């Protein structure tokens, strides 16, 4: 082939979409696939502290012993099989419970005449915004039994009944608190799916003589089912990588899941075994991705967005309306105000567990560093503690930067994936941008650390920089915004862009004058979730922060470690307030909607 023909062909094919997708794929390959390869390598290498367990080796030598130990060794049952089983049970129960709560609420809000819909929808998102272990902390405060000592929980204090261990700790509370944290997920996805069901479809069915249950079964369920299953899978995969809650509630009864096993081995300086666990978790995540993409493929075939008819389809709750409303309200208050209130009150107690009014103090907020008061911590109150203020500033910067990077990339990915739909490129890009979602946060963090700890070629070592944190968070949360981007772009017909092309507009002009204006609300919605997630992230960043780049969440770890909960809780209260405030402001000013960020 002569060069002229070749370049001609390249030029013809080098549409903006193609160039973009090639670039994005390259970046993602480096940030997603390379860390994976690094992790695989780590499982075959002797690490410094492991060299004495593997006789006759030096650090860096090749070894198969990590894999042998995890699958065949005498301790394989307790290192791998039991935690694996626990993880599966936990994730499965949690995601099913979350979807039941979320789905029911979504149905109530979208399809019935329940009052205060707006209020319910707003409140139902709050549990997801709060750090997930807020719920476990609240559970402990309420249902603590004497096993872990200290003051008894509020329940026992009031009723005098000592709760059994299985209720206070372990699988049951882990499942419940995680379901409470993740149900907003299901609520948002299912309500948007329900909203997208054209009520004309139902009306036509009814006109043809179908009964209501029949319509539900034959029309509504099939349309919503992909969204429901997809949500179950997404929630399930989140369960796999969650560290905080199982460690907090499982610890007292020694319940291990894969994430806590991974953490124990990583901090126990046994990265070889740890990465075997991590790879297993990623493999499970990959299976979920595969199943989800099958479902998504099915979902794509429905075209459901068209003109909407009125609210004629609302189900009347009738006499059940008030009891149901009260029940929903009580539930929502229990999962929002109460945990938040417990944290806030706890940050005011001079001695934790002593809730008498005379012992309330602002010491942990504005007190001087004094080793003779309260916990005798010798730490300044958080609002005058330079270290904590710097960490809060870092968190805000990280949140904003991550949101911007995610938002822009997400829209570009959405654009290329949709415009090139059906090509291999689009498929690869779609899958690649979704992969980080399935990597357990803590494992992904450690893989990025391994990748960026030393300079590689033109890429310098990024350890100790905020850039590294921004990269980690952006890649990890990209799925949120790329999903939002894909679903938003799907709603824009190519005609609009084609018309602009006919009128002679360049690609840049088409983007800035046609696509972006149409996508404004989706774009900002795609920013919100990465921002929130970055603000309250812990598992992902815990290994990546350095003294100069401490974040609000990581800086609290040392307080938690020492049992100085009032400081931790005060910082948590600040984070929650900051996040809620941002959500509210952006909704007022920019019309953002969190649900779009999850990509329903």
């Amino acid at each position, binding site marked *: 082939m002569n060069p002229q023909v070749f370049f001609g062909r390249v030029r013809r094919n080098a549409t903006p979409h193609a160039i973009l997708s090639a670039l994005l794929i390259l970046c993602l390959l480096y940030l997603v696939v390379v860390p994976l390869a690094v992790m695989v390598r780590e499982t075959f290498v002797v690490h410094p502290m492991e060299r004495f367990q593997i006789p006759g080796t030096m650090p860096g030598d090749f070894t198969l012993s990590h894999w042998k130990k995890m699958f065949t060794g005498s301790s394989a049952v307790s290192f791998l099989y039991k935690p694996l089983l626990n993880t599966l049970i936990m994730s499965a129960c949690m995601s099913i419970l979350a979807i039941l709560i979320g789905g029911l609420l979504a149905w109530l809000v979208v399809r019935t005449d329940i009052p205060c819909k707006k209020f319910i929808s707003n409140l139902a998102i709050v549990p997801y915004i709060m750090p997930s272990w807020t719920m476990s902390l609240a559970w402990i405060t309420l249902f603590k039994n004497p096993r872990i000592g200290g003051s008894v929980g509020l329940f026992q204090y009031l009723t005098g009944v000592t709760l059994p261990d299985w209720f206070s700790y372990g699988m049951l509370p882990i499942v419940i608190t995680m379901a409470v944290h993740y149900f907003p997920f299901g609520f948002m996805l299912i309500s948007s799916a329900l909203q997208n069901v054209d009520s004309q479809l139902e009306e036509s069915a009814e006109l043809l003589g179908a009964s209501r249950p029949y319509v539900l079964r034959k029309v509504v369920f099939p349309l919503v089912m992909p969204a429901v299953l997809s949500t179950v899978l997404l929630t399930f995969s989140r369960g796999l990588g969650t560290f905080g809650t199982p460690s907090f509630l499982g610890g007292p009864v020694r319940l291990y899941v894969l994430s806590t096993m991974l953490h124990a081995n990583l901090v126990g300086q046994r990265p070889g075994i740890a990465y075997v666990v991590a790879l297993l978790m990623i493999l499970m995540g990959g299976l979920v991705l595969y199943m989800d993409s099958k479902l998504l493929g099915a979902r794509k075939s429905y075209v459901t967005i068209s003109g909407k008819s009125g609210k004629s389809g609302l189900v009347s709750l009738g006499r059940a309306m008030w009891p149901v409303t009260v029940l929903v309200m009580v539930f929502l208050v229990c999962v929002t105000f109460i945990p938040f209130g417990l944290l806030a009150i706890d940050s005011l107690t001079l001695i934790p567990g002593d809730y008498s009014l005379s012992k309330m103090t602002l010491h942990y907020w504005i007190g001087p560093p004094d080793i003779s008061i309260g916990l005798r911590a010798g730490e300044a109150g958080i609002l005058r503690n330079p270290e904590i203020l710097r960490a809060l500033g870092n968190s805000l910067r990280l949140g904003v930067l991550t949101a911007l990077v995610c938002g822009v990339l997400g829209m570009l990915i959405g654009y290329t994936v949709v415009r090139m739909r059906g090509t291999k490129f689009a498929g690869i890009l779609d899958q690649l941008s979704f992969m980080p979602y399935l990597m357990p946060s803590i494992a992904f963090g450690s893989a990025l650390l391994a990748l960026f700890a030393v300079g590689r070629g033109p890429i310098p070592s990024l*350890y100790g920089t905020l850039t590294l944190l921004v990269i980690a968070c952006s890649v990890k949360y990209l799925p949120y915004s790329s999903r939002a981007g894909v679903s938003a772009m799907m709603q824009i017909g190519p005609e609009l862009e084609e018309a602009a092309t006919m009128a002679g507009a360049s690609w840049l002009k088409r983007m800035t004058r046609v696509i972006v204006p149409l996508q404004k609300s989706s774009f900002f919605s795609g920013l919100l979730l990465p921002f929130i997630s970055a603000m309250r992230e812990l598992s992902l960043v815990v290994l990546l922060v350095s003294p100069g780049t401490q974040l609000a969440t990581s800086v609290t*770890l040392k307080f938690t*470690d020492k049992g100085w909960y009032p400081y931790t809780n005060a910082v948590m209260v600040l984070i929650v307030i900051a996040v809620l405030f941002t959500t509210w402001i952006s909704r007022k000013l920019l019309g953002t909607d969190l649900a779009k960020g999850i990509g329903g």
Partner: protein
Amino acid sequence: MKRTLWLSVSILMTVTLLMSLSVAGLAQTSENWNDILKAASKEGKVVVYSTTSRITEAAKGFEKEFGIKVDSHLLSETELIERVYREARAGIKSADLVLIEDFPSMKELLIAPGYLVNYIPPCAMKDVPADMRNPLVFAHVSRIIGYNSEKYKTAPFESIWDLTTPQWKGKVMIRDVALTGEHQNAFTELIRRSDELAANYESHFGKKLQLREANAGLEFMRRLAENDVIIMTSDTRIAEAVGKKGQADPPVGFFYVYSKHRDAEAKNLAISAAVDLKPFAGYYYNIYLQLASKPPHPNAAKALAEYLMTPAGFTPWSSDIGIYASNTAVKHHPQDKPWDWWESRLWTYNADFAIRNRAIALDTWIRSTSK
């Protein structure tokens, strides 16, 4: 031929030895302390990573006296090691000085590759016993076994084996061994001194110890774990749980830092250490003072090292019980016992043995505890 080889090897070794000795001596003695202080003032700043929170207070004293700003970072023991290791490998110069624990990890991960170097400041040369100078011990920390002193007037157990009996099932609290390097080290000592443990079992119960594990140390770990041990996240919470007043059936705290007893009065806790427990009343570990091998502020680092080792610099620590200076000029806390008294009751660990056996101890622990 063989003889000449021997001879040359021994000469070589002697020369190397002498050289290293003289170099070490040179490095330490040829220092002009005034020059160092001058250079330190010019540097104006020093960065310290520490596992003990009292560093912030000591830093203030240092800033006041020398006008050099101290940037102190509190880190957990594993975090500190991880951080120094990562930073050194990435070529990042951040810390000048570290107050660090977990000797085996420090030795393998940080000293062996040359990321940390030992430095003996003048006052340590004078007042720290020679066997604690390399690596330089900053202080000893005691971890004990404690009980609720409101419920029990004296310790309700005599042998540590009592804690593996049904009477204490679901009642013994310990900080997560998997996350506490020093616990792993301490348990290796139980393996190393298995004979003493087995002998204590036999004399206490009047029968031979039946082993299901390879030795008495691991057997103890397993029995303790299987006796429904309660794994806690922090020593503070253990002390609070054990010492809370008005409990009908209070738990026992295993291997928590004795310094938690300092808060007993302020927190209204009734808590005592079982100091006559056999064969050990707990263990101690050392906090080491080390310099980064490429410190950004080398002179200020030395000045701070010297300050921390002096009785004045150690005040934030010596004002409380449970932590003991390696510097013999530092007086022990009036309400505490002298270090010799503790040292005779507590076990510690052999670093080389700990490095080789830590993984075995941790494996046994996880295997016996996981549900």
